[in-house]
C-alpha cells in the first residue's frame, strides 16, 4: 500500500484552485458558441418617443423622419425617401434620420448603404441602450441580405433577445420604428 504523502498547504490551495478552474472552465465551455450573452429584453427605440429631443432644428428633422415612416406605411417609398433626404438636409447630424434611413435601405433598398447609415447612426448617437436591438438587428438583417447568414445570425439573435416583440420576426417594420 502506498501511503499518500501529506499535502502541503500550498498543494491544497493548488487543488482547490484546480477545482475552481475546472468548474470555471466547464461553465465557460458550457456557454453557446454564439457571442450573444442572452441580454435582458428592454424597450426598443421608437422615433415618436424621441421626437421632442434636441433643439428646434433637430425636432423638425425628426418630424420629417416620422413623416417618412408614415409614407412607408402608406406604401409610398418614393416620398419616404424624399422625406428622409429632407430630414438630413435640415440636420445632417440627426442620428434618427440615419437610423430610419438605414432601416429603409436594409429592407427596401441597398443593404450596403443600410450598413453605412447604421455606422453613421452609431457615430452620431453613441451607445444608446434603447437602440441596441435595432442596431444589432439591422446589422444582422443587412448581412443576411448580403448573403452572410453565419455572420448575421448572432446579431439577429441578439436583437431578438433584446426586443423579442419587435425583432422576433427578424424584421423592423416602419410601424415598429415609428
Amino acid at each position: 500500500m502506498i501511503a499518500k504523502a501529506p499535502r502541503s498547504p500550498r498543494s491544497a490551495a493548488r487543488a482547490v484552485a484546480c477545482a475552481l478552474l475546472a468548474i470555471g472552465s466547464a461553465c465557460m465551455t458550457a456557454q453557446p458558441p454564439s457571442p450573444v450573452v442572452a441580454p435582458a429584453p428592454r424597450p426598443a427605440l421608437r422615433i415618436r418617443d424621441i421626437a421632442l429631443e434636441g433643439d428646434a432644428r433637430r425636432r423638425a428633422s425628426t418630424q420629417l423622419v416620422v413623416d417618412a415612416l408614415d409614407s412607408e406605411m402608406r406604401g409610398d417609398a418614393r416620398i419616404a425617401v424624399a422625406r428622409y433626404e429632407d430630414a438630413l438636409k435640415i440636420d445632417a447630424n440627426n442620428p434618427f434620420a440615419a437610423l430610419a434611413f438605414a432601416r429603409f435601405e436594409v429592407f427596401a433598398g441597398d443593404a450596403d448603404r443600410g450598413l453605412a447609415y447604421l455606422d453613421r447612426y452609431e457615430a452620431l448617437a453613441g451607445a444608446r441602450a434603447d437602440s441596441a436591438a435595432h442596431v444589432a438587428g439591422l446589422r444582422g438583417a443587412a448581412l443576411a441580405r448580403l448573403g452572410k447568414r453565419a455572420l448575421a445570425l448572432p446579431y439577429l439573435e441578439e436583437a431578438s433577445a433584446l426586443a423579442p416583440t419587435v425583432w422576433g420576426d427578424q424584421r423592423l417594420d416602419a410601424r415598429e420604428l415609428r
Partner: protein
Amino acid sequence: MRGSGRARARIVAVPRLLGIALFLASSAAGGIVGHELAQLDRIVRARFEGTLFRVPSRVLSAPLILYPGLDYKLIDLRGTLERLGYREASGESLPLGRYRMSERELRIHRRAFEHPSRAEPARLVSLQLSGRSIDAIRDLQTKREIGALFLEPEAVGAYYGPDREQRELVRVAEIPKQMTDAVMAVEDQRFYSHIGLDFWRIGGAMAANLRAGSVVQGGSTLTQQLVKNFFLTPDRQLKRKLEEAAMALIVEARYEKDAILEAYLNEIYLGQRGATQVHGIGEAARFYFGKPVRDLSLSECALIAGLIQSPNRLSPHRSQQAATERRDLVLRLMLQQAKITQAEFAEAAAEPLRVATITPDLRDARFFLDALRRELPNYYSEVNLAAEGLRIYSTLDLRLQRAASRVVREELERLEKSTRALAPKDGQRLEACLVALRPQTGEVLALVGGRDYAASQFDRCTQARRPAGSLFKAFVYAAALEPANGAPTITLASWLDDSALLVPVWRGNWAPQNFDHQFHGVVPVRTAFEKSYNVASARLGQTIGIARVREMAQRLGVESPLPNVPSLALGSADVTPLELARAYATFASGGIRPRVRTFEDVIDPQGESLERQPIEFERVLDSGTAFLVTSLLQGVVERGTGAGIRAAGVRGPVAGKTGTSNEERDAWFAGFTPEMVVVLWVGFDEPRSLGQAAARIAVPIWAHFVKETTGDEVAGEFPVPGDVAALEIDPATGAIALDGCPERRAEYFLRGTEPVETCPQWRGAPTPPPLAPALPPREAPLAKPPRADDEPGLMERFRRWLEDE
C-alpha cells in the same frame, strides 16, 4: 346653202370653244387652287399633328425648406417669397400667393405646387418669429404645428434652342375662364361663332383704315393670328393674306375651337426677358406675376390679354401707366360684352399693378446647367433638351449659388486691385472656381466654374485639372493613420522628421523644400500638418509608400490619373476641384464617399419620371480614421495655414486645408463644416505665379462665402465615433498625461492605438515599459500596441500561476 351652213357652224363653234376654253381654264385654276389648298392642308396637318411646340427643358432649384430654428433673415425669406411671386397683402384677407409679415409673425398663403416627391397642396400657414429665427410653424386650417414647410422650387434656367423661346405649356382646361374671356374680348370676341374669318371684323377694320388713310386696325381672328405666327411672315402682301385666310379656314375645318384656342394661348408672343422670348400665357404668368396661370386674378388676366397687341410697348416693366391703361381697356371691353359684372370690373380696375421683379437667367448658374447636362445620359442631347419640355429638379441651392457667384466676382476684383501680380495681363484675368457639396447626400449646392460665363464657358470646377498642392496631404495622413496590417503608421501623438530629404528618382534626386525654405527638425504630426510642412509629409509618404497614398486618394474619390512618383504626396498630380470636393466630403461624412449629384428627377410634360439620381454612397474609410483626419483639418483652421478662417469671424466646427502648387500657380482651400464641403481654386487659365500662398488668396474668399451663407456661427458638430478614444497626453513625449505631468492636451486615438506609457514625471505607480519610443520620430510602422483584449485576463494569469507551480 353650204356656205351659210358652214358659217352657222362656225358661229355655233365659237361659244363652244369658248366654253371649252373656259372650262379648261377654270379646271386648271381649280386644279391649281386645289393643289395649293392641298399643300396648305399638308403644312397645317404636319404642324398640328406633329410636335406643336418646341419647349425648352427647364431646370428648377431644390425646394426651400422652412423649419423651426432656421435663421430666416440669413436666407432672405422675404426676398425668396418675392422672387417666387408672393406679394405682401395689404388688407385683412390673405389670398393665395400673398404673405403678411410683422415682427413676430409671417403668414403665408402658400400656393400648391407639383414636385415628383414633394408635391404640396395650397396651405395657409403662420410662422412665429423670434429675433432672427423661426420659432414655430402652424397650419392655420388644421390648427396644428408642422415640422417643416416647403416652398416651391425656383427656376434656375432652361436649355434653349437657337430661337431662345421660353414657354410653359398650359392645357385649355387649366386656364381660368376670365383669362380666355379677356383675350377674346380684346382680340376676337366672336371666336366661338366664326369660321376662321370674321367678316364683320374685317369690314370694320377696312372702314377704320379707310377713314384713317392708313392701316390702323387689323381684322385678324385668333385663328388667323395663330396661322400667321406658325407658318407665315408678318408682311402684309396680298398673297400672304390669302394664304393666311385659306389656312385659317383649313384649321377651323379640321380642329376643335378649344384646340385652336389652346394652341394660340401657348404660342402668342408676350414679351422679352433679356435675350429670351416669352411665349404663351403660362410663361407670361410666371414672368409678369411669378405664379402659375391658374392663380391669376382678373386684373392680371386683363393685363396679359392687353399685352398681345404690343408686348414690349405695353410691358408693365417698361411703363406702368401704359400697361394699366391697356388693362383697364380690356376690363371695359369685358364689361361691355357682359363677361364680368360691374362690381368685378370696379374691383379689378382698382387693383394696383404689382408685377414680379425680373429675375434674369442666372448667368453664372449656366456652369451648373452645363455640368448637369453632362451628368444626364446621352439621350438628353442639346436638341432634345431644347424641345421636349422636361422639368429637371436639380440639387442647386439658389441662395448659395447667388452668394457664390457674387463672392467670387467681388473677391477676384478685390485681389486684382490690391495685388499687382494678380492684375490682368496679356488678356488673362484671374480666374476661380467654387463648388459646394452636401457631404451626406452628395448634392451639388453651388457651382461657379469661372468669374464670367459670357467670357468663358470653360468650367474650372469639372473640366480643369490642376495640381492639388498640399490638399493631397490629407490623403497622405489618412493613409498613415488608417490601420494597415493591424496598426497605423502614425497616431496623432507621433512625431515626424522635417529634416532634409533626398529621394532618388529616375533623373537624379528629388529634394522637397518647405514653403519657408527651412527645415524644422522633429515635429509633432499635428504641427507638420497644420503648418503644411512639405518635407515631413514627403517623408511620411515615402514611409507608407506612394502606392498607398495613391490608393487612398482614389478610394476617397479622386478619379484623375495619379502618377506613382514621390511628389504625389505633395499634390503634384492634376485633379479637378470637384474630385477634391468629393474626397473631402468623404472625410466630412465619416468615411462614407457620396456620389456627386446635380439633379434628383427628370420629369416629362405628362409628369412621368424619366430619370432619377438617388443618394448613393459607399463606406471607403473607417469612421475613426476619417475623424482623425477631420481633427487634423480642424487644427489647420485653428492654428495653421487656415487660421484666416477664424480671423474672418467664422466660428463653430470648420475643418480644411490650404493648397499652393509649385511656383504659387494655384491657390486652393478645401474645407468643410458638418453640413457643407466647399472647394475653392484660384489661378490663371494659362498658369502663372500668383505671388502669394493660398492662405492669403483662397482662404479669405472661402471664409467670405461660408460666413455669408452660414452666418457667423456654423451649426452642427463633427461627432466622435465609437472607435475613437480621447486621452490627455503629454505633448512632449506623446505619453499619457497624469498627475504631475507638466503639460497636457487632449488627443484622439483609434481604440487600441492609445499610448500605454505615462509621462516620466508621473508620480504614481511605475509604468510598464513603452512599446515603442515616442522619440525619435518613427518612420517605420509602429508595432501593434497591445489591445485590451490581448492582455492576459484573470483566468489566464491564474492558469499561468498554476503552471509555474
